[in-house]
């Protein structure tokens, strides 16, 4: 039961952590949408936009090393696609950056724009989840209109991921302790099928136990929390600053930087 390595920072305390989860979620959504709709060849503006999530991460006391390690972890698919751009788009352009001027192709610029947008938007998402407790985020989402069934489902799923990952680790260790040499694909598949099957049966049993335990405590299919979500003046201030930042960059800085 260690949620430790993915959202340990969500349980810290800071001004950012105390903000309402709905406000934070909507700000990240708007931010992502704005970044994605930037022109496909302007790299420089992305640096300006990166300031936002950076500030949140810093204020929320989340180590940047952690954030960038995480970005590397999720990047392979987009990396492969971004690297196809230089091969297909060979229109030559001249790039000027301060005193430096060099020739390159449009493909490379689009490749870097895509990667830049990816880093900035993932950074924003990391800033959201590592400064918001998942239960608060869910409560906020429910208030924003997500069906309660889905919210309960997400809550249960989040709660038990690491219980079952622990189980899976035990099963994997048992296989590793017994495996000698290369058994061939047929056996391999059969073993994996058995492992997954027994994990599945175990899950069914666990679910049954949880169900009985929750019934004993009066669960009737509705989530009740004592956590009252309320939007305070700090949230208004945050929303105002975020809006000024995002739209200020978009309307005034983008046309200049292009």
């Amino acid at each position, binding site marked *: 039961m260690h949620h430790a390595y*993915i959202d340990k920072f969500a349980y810290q305390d800071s001004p950012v952590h105390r903000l309402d989860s709905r406000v934070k979620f909507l700000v*990240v*959504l708007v931010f*992502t*949408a704005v970044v*994605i*709709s930037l022109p496909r*060849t302007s790299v*420089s503006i992305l640096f300006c936009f990166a300031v936002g999530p950076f500030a949140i991460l810093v204020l929320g006391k989340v180590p940047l090393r952690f954030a960038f390690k995480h970005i590397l972890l*999720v990047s392979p698919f*987009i990396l492969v*696609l971004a690297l196809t*751009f230089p091969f*297909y788009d060979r229109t030559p*352009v001249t*790039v*000027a950056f*301060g005193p430096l001027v060099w020739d390159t192709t*449009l*493909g490379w610029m689009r490749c870097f724009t*895509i990667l830049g947008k990816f880093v900035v938007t993932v950074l924003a*998402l990391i800033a959201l989840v590592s400064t918001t407790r998942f239960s608060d985020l869910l409560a906020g989402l429910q208030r*924003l*209109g*997500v*069906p*309660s*069934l*889905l919210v309960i*489902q*997400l809550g249960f*799923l*989040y709660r*038990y*991921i690491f219980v*079952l*990952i622990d189980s*899976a680790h035990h099963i994997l260790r048992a296989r590793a302790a017994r495996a000698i040499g290369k058994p061939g694909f047929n056996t*391999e*598949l*059969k073993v994996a*099928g*058995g*492992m*997954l*099957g027994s*994990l*599945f049966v175990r*899950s*069914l049993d666990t*679910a*049954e136990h*949880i*169900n009985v335990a929750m*019934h004993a405590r009066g669960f009737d*299919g509705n989530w009740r929390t004592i956590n009252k979500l309320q939007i305070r003046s700090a949230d208004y201030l945050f929303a105002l600053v975020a809006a000024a930042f995002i739209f200020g960059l*978009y309307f005034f800085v*983008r*046309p200049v930087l*292009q």
Partner: protein
Amino acid sequence: MHMANELLSIPVAAGTLAIAAGGLGFICRKVREVLTGDKLPLMGILGAFVFAGQMVNFQLPAMPGTSGHMVGAVLLAIILGPHLGAIVISSVVIIQCLIFQDGGLLALGCNVINMALVPSYVGYFLYRTVTAGRFSPVRAYVGAMLASIIAIEAGAVLVPVQAALSGVLAVPFSTFLITMLGVHALVGLMEGLITVAVLAYLQQVRPDVVTDTLPGRVRLSRKSVLVTLLIFTVVIGAGLSLLASGMPDGLEWSYAERPDEPDFPPAVSNEDSAIAAVDEFQEKYSPMPDYSRRSSKLGEPAGEGMEAHVGWTSFAGVVGSAVTMVVIWLVAWLLRKKQARTA
């Protein structure tokens, strides 16, 4: 095959988000009618099972050093039924996005459609069709195999389609499509094999799970499956065609011009006045203006043409996304209100 934000344009992202939200809201409402509180823990745990199950890897044949793992959508659809399966896998996709940042926030709609809704319904429908009537192991295995391969391919096909509609690809559409199909044929084959292996194990240990009596499944008549599938096909088809006609940019970009060869004769000519009007409209109000090859240099001032309609394009972009968010909110709010009234 997690879609990233960067592969989508705002209209496609908003459209798919609206479709996914509407679809999930609809399923939740339908399931809530038959579901009691005791099935909620089961669904949650099985979602966690998908996560844990993806850690159980096995060596692939002929490719030493690589290993495969289960995806799980089809297995859950077979055992839980398509509605519950779709909700469970959607929740897995949402957690992957929010907690693990796998797939972007704007791409969540695409990911829910491609990896949860489509595989669950396609997989369940195929499995049920093959295993119709009396239960026999052979039929169950053939059905599971077929369902896995086709369900995964069906989801994979949508990725290049969505990317092409967004007009972000540099890779030709057909190349991307063939690559996706090829890679996911392998993924689907592995998924089929492992699904069959798990079903075989479950049949020995808990035969009640594989036949029809698992506590917590929603029973479905074939008719309702067909009707639901039909509705989804129509909704998704209509959504995609609306996007296609509203945003000619994407397909235009891959078929009508070759940016690397400006003299290349366009495969599709836009002589029709309606298309020309749409083109003009789009040029004026598109949230993502066509980039101009020669004026968009880093650090160099943009051409006058760009500057003239920058204000308008950004205005349209903001209003467009705001309107779409309001629409999504309204749809979910209406569904919730209706749900509250029926409950």
